[in-house]
């Protein structure tokens, strides 16, 4: 890895009462790298990206975006939390895609994409609109510019959500199980968009249950279990020698479940 990582997570912990959702997680993401975070439910994958985006506080450790401390500032020989306005500024440099899409239902598709550009980044409406048109074309929804989210399928909503996150040209995209809430036949259209982003060199962390897709599109995998990073490495080595039994068990169980679920047409 050369230079400063885009994102650097150092030994972060996050507990909910007695339960440690993140139990000392460290992770570096280099410019242009796509990292797939995999692992069983409740392993802390989603908490990790939510903490990186400062939607949840961390109890200890530190995180850096382009070398800048996230969420805190130096004050004397210690650090103190940043004021909310500064936290908002840091969030603007990251894009987030949620499992449940979270489009704003009271705005049209276009307004969903333009509003942050205008209100947060101070672009003028025409400029923001141009960017929205360009992004909607990119995700294949140019004809839905004036639709409301309820009029779109889940897959279309998630593609708009991706366009919305891209609108402000984030340094890194955080995708939190982007296809988990979708009907099986709608998964592929979203994966296609994500694949294009990866090919375009966007830096991304993808939390996903789509193991096959993750291994195809990512440069590196991170396997988490019970709040810890159990293993990580290049995706090519995910099944290689020296991989832990836990990862092997997860992968075999997962492919089995996935297969049987597909046959029943159920959502996974």
């Amino acid at each position: 890895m050369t230079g400063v990582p885009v994102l650097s997570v150092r030994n972060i912990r996050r507990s909910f009462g007695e339960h440690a959702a993140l139990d000392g997680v460290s992770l570096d993401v280099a410019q242009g790298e796509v990292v797939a975070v995999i692992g069983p439910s409740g392993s802390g994958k989603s908490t990790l990206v939510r903490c990186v985006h400062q939607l949840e506080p961390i109890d200890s450790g530190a995180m850096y975006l382009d070398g800048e401390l996230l969420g805190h500032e130096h004050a004397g020989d210690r650090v103190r939390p940043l004021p909310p306005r500064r936290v908002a500024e840091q969030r603007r440099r990251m894009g987030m895609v949620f499992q449940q899409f979270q489009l704003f239902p009271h705005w049209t598709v276009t307004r969903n994409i333009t509003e942050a550009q205008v209100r947060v980044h101070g672009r003028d409406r025409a400029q923001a609109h141009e960017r929205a048109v360009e992004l909607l074309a990119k995700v294949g929804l140019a004809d839905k510019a004036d639709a409301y989210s309820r009029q779109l399928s889940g897959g279309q909503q998630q593609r708009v959500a991706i366009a919305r996150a891209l609108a402000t040209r984030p340094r890194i995209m955080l995708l939190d199980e982007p296809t988990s809430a979708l009907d099986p036949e709608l998964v592929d259209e979203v994966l296609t968009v994500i694949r294009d982003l990866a090919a375009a060199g966007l830096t991304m962390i993808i939390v996903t249950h789509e193991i096959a897709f993750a291994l195809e599109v990512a440069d590196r995998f991170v396997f988490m279990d019970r709040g810890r990073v159990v293993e990580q490495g290049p995706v090519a080595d995910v099944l290689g020698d020296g991989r832990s039994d836990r990862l092997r068990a997860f992968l075999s169980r997962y492919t089995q479940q996935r297969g049987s679920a597909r046959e029943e047409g159920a959502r996974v």
Partner: protein
Amino acid sequence: MTTTATPHDLGHVDVATARPRPRPWRWLLGALIAVGLAQVAWFVTHNPRFEWPVVAEYLFDPNVLAGLGTSVLLTVVAMLAGSVLGVLLALGQLADFGPVRWVCTLYIGLFRGIPPLVQLLFWFNLAYLLPRLSIGVPFGPTFGSWSTNDLITPLTAALIGLTLHEAAYMAEIVRAGILSVDPGQRDAAMAMGFTGGQTFLRVVLPQAMRVIIPPSGSQFISLLKGTSLVSVIAMTDLLHAVQTVYNQTYQIVPMLIVACFWYLVVVTALSFLQQRLERRFGRGQRSTRGEWLA
């Protein structure tokens, strides 16, 4: 009766040619309603004590219209001020800073619990408790001072009392509205770099409005009717205006009908406005009738 078709008959029936089922209970109920309405209409038109000519005479009486104006003014001002205060109280109740939460909860408990009539009398008699009102540094110098009796007129007492009462109710309505919005919406807005204020005003509140408006409409209506209480502090609202007339003429029933007429006119106008607002804030949502609102 069910008829079982032999395989030979299949395909010989088309339900599009079906005749309606006879529904005798509906006919009976319809007849009862028609008779009841006819009876009410007969009573209203043929009972001389309604004194319809008197109603007509006073319907547009300048004093009655002035009273109506006062009632509507009190309602609108108290509703607007009460709503703004209510939103702040709702936010206070949801704040993560304990003392703010406690103060707001205490306020709501207090002002929802005290009858508005008692509050009106209390504010009107504020001078007994505080002879002078002044602005200044607490326990320090004062910059200005006024006699309470000069400031607390029937109008200001009515506005303060109704606003504070209304704010307590609106706070609960707004809080329910805010809680009805998916917390993920707040996450998504914050994730895009909106500040807390932008997130609330542009994302959370507009969606909360769908839940806030219907009970607010009822609140507005009960506030309008609640303005009839201000006659106790010598405020000439609609009710007080008709009372002034019938205290001299003893035409109680026709004058009350005049008041009812105007209350119903305003309430009907409000209901219409509420419908418009519901459509406005229902954008992107499916209506109860199934069509898209846009």
